[in-house]
């Protein structure tokens, strides 16, 4: 019976074996000290047990050397834990350059995955073995956390901000995905699976049931929301051109420079007055409430893919979108 009690988690990612090595080292060192203290306690308790009622043991002189020894040796071991841990931490935090991206949106109480090829999944994530995968994650409501024990990776998923997580699976199989930041009633049910497949199987899976890719969905949204009314290549365009801008630096009205990344693009869609590009007026309406987090990610995918000359044309005779706040006398109170 005891042989069937699971003791150690599976290793299914490149990171997992690295974490397990460090874990084993810490267990060994700490185990040694635990056993040492235990043995000393038991030995002293037995060897020096009270013999007569009025035993009067002689004092033992204190020793600075001893105190320093048993302070500095544990400290030295801890520094090894620290340095080794930092190395692992940085490798967990920094994805390699060649990654496969997946967008993850968490909400009470489900995980929504969006692959760049257009595949969508709920509570499941299909990935190929041997490929680095980077998740860009955001929450629609409260804080969640994306946890795959078999990969030894873990990252909180926050509202209002993207967080990222990367891994490279090493073994095909189905692995638990748990939400591990308490998020309400069905926190324990916000679970799923990461399904790691061999390359060819994965290709097969990719070709099934595909909606538009995020970029193509984003393009549809871009046109539906009439973004190119302002964001076009006319000389009198009211908004900056969005072609080929991702990862560039841009100067703002207040003189500051900002890097165009997912965070900046999201902010510009939802809170356009925040960082206005130099030479343009703050007249862009906010799309807060009109697009959800998934749609924001789709727009961002589209903008990332937008190359020179590819801005969709304006639909004809369409009025520019109203800035509802500028147009009205009095805005809404909260």
């Amino acid at each position: 019976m005891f042989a069937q009690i699971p003791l150690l988690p599976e290793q299914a990612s490149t990171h997992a074996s690295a974490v397990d090595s460090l874990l084993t080292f810490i267990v060994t060192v700490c185990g040694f000290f635990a056993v040492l203290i235990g043995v000393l306690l038991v030995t002293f308790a037995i060897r020096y047990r009270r013999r007569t009622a009025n035993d009067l043991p002689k004092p033992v002189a204190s020793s600075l050397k001893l105190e320093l020894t048993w302070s500095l040796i544990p400290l030295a071991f801890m520094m090894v834990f620290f340095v080794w841990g930092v190395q692992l931490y940085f490798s967990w935090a920094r994805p390699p350059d060649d990654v496969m991206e997946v967008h993850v949106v968490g909400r009470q109480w489900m995980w929504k995955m969006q692959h760049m090829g257009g595949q969508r999944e709920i509570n499941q994530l299909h990935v190929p073995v041997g490929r680095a995968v980077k998740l860009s994650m955001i929450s629609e409501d409260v804080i969640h956390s994306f946890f795959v024990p078999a990969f030894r990776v873990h990252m909180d998923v926050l509202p209002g901000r993207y967080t990222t997580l990367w891994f490279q699976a090493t073994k095909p199989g189905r692995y638990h995905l748990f939400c591990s930041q308490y998020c309400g009633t069905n926190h324990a049910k916000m679970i799923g699976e990461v399904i790691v497949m061999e390359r060819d199987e994965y290709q097969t899976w990719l070709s099934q049931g595909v909606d538009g890719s995020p970029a193509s969905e984003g393009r549809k949204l871009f046109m539906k929301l009439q973004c190119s009314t302002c964001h076009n290549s006319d000389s009198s365009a009211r908004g900056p051109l969005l072609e080929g801008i991702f990862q560039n630096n841009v100067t703002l009205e207040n003189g500051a420079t900002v890097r165009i990344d997912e965070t900046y693009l999201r902010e510009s869609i939802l809170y356009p007055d925040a960082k206005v590009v130099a030479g343009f007026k703050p007249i862009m309406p906010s799309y807060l409430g009109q697009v959800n987090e998934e749609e924001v990610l789709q727009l961002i995918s589209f903008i990332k893919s937008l190359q020179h000359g590819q801005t969709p044309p304006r639909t004809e005779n369409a009025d520019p979108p109203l800035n509802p706040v500028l147009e009205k006398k009095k805005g809404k109170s909260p």
Partner: protein
Amino acid sequence: MSTVIAEPSSRPAEPASKPVNYLNVQFGVRSWLLTTDHKRIAILYLISITVMFFLGSLAIVPVRLQLLKPDNDLLDADTYNKMFTMHGVVMVFFFIIPGIPAVLGNFLLPMMLGAKDLAFPKLNLLSWYVYLLGGAFSLYAMIAGGVDTGWTFYTPYSTRSSHTNVIPVGLGAFTAGFSSILTGLNFLVTTHKMRAPGLTWFRLPLFVWAMYATSIIILLGTPVVAVTILMLAIERIFQVGVFDPALGGDPLLFQHLFWFYSHPAVYIMILPAMGVVTEIVPCFSRKNIYGYKFIAFSSLAIALLGFLVWGHHMFVSGQSVYLGMIFSILSFLVAVPSAIKVFNWTATLYKGSVSFETPMLFAFGFIGLFTIGGLTGMFLATLGTDVHLHDTYFVIAHFHFIMVGGVVMAYMGGLHFWWPKMTGRMYSEFWGRIAAMLIFIGFILTFLPQFVVGHLGMPRRYFQYAPEFQVHNVMSTAGASILGVGYFLPLIYLIGSLAYGPKASSNPWKATGLEWQTPSPPPTENFPVTPVVTREPYRYSEEVPVGY
């Protein structure tokens, strides 16, 4: 009032008639509810804290029963979430933070200092009423539908999403915080200003050093969580606030502010416990404590360093990796003073004369379990491994080893050690040892499997879980039943000793320390004449102390 040189081992005159002590000097409910005697206030706290301990324990019973099966439906999700929240809130704010300071600290601190009372006796009584008020708010919240945010109240769930009584519980924790501040303030000022003649800092018992360090943490940390709970309440009521992302607010700011107190809070819990153990071990080894100054300064070091490590609760929160590095290295540093204490306690046994009465059994239990708990902290301070273990049962096991295997063991040890002094009665040594062993065994069976199941990946706060985690959960629940029996026994035999226990002498353990030089139970003014201290504490090697 005159002072007489009273060597701690001399015998003051014994009155011929039945002695008047703090318990029988006045009878009646009013004399208790309006008392300013620190000893009576300690007993009042003892009763309320025991009630809270059993309430918090009751809350976890349905949780552990629910966890017997992976897809159990004994409790629905909402009820389960409310039960573990109640367990956390009651145990943290109303049992373990006040625990040793309010009961043992209140009773012993003035006596160990040779004083007649704390610096502010009326504030002391006020602190008990404030504690009751906080308890009332929280219990109301629990009865009127409960709270399901977890004791950590993370935003935005607690401000925007939870439909439960967050504000009453927040108010309860806020109020309990003020009770804690009043206690800490009293202890700190008393230690500075009310030491008996000749009682210099390095002649103080180490329990006093521990309470002093604890008071520093209480004063500096508690107000921060108070104002954080206030900000949370305002945001929840008005639905606008500083933690709301829609206004540019940062949910991580809540976490920083919350943990800025709640991490040092665990040192508020552990330092008094270490102080208790440091009193027990020399007494039952008949030896001077090894490394007095190291233990004293390590308490201060823990208090200081404890304020610098809070971010280790946030390694995967989205905070910067560089910040993570800083918190990690500081978290290792704060472990060193605790290690120093463990080695010094062990060294005290060396060439001593060790006996195994109940207090000493609890002290041994503390040293063993606290060591394991502390060592498992290494996995969590290490960035690379914490990423995997964060928010799993590994963390739950870690802090229960320290809080229950550590603090509660020490509390029980201290309660048994000073019970004769506080009540004038001896309890049954046989049942004491049974309880200590049951608690030790039950504890290990409850929490050791949780390290394994956490490492396997079982997350915290799950009312249902993956099937492969079942065996560990069953072991844990089984252990919890034994632990429950173990805690229930002292309730019976300690209360029973009040009626049936043999009368205790002033110094049944033959311990050093000013509190043992006065009758059991002590008179209201503690010392008929103010003692004058001329020698260091723990002088076990010079002569066997006697009592009368």
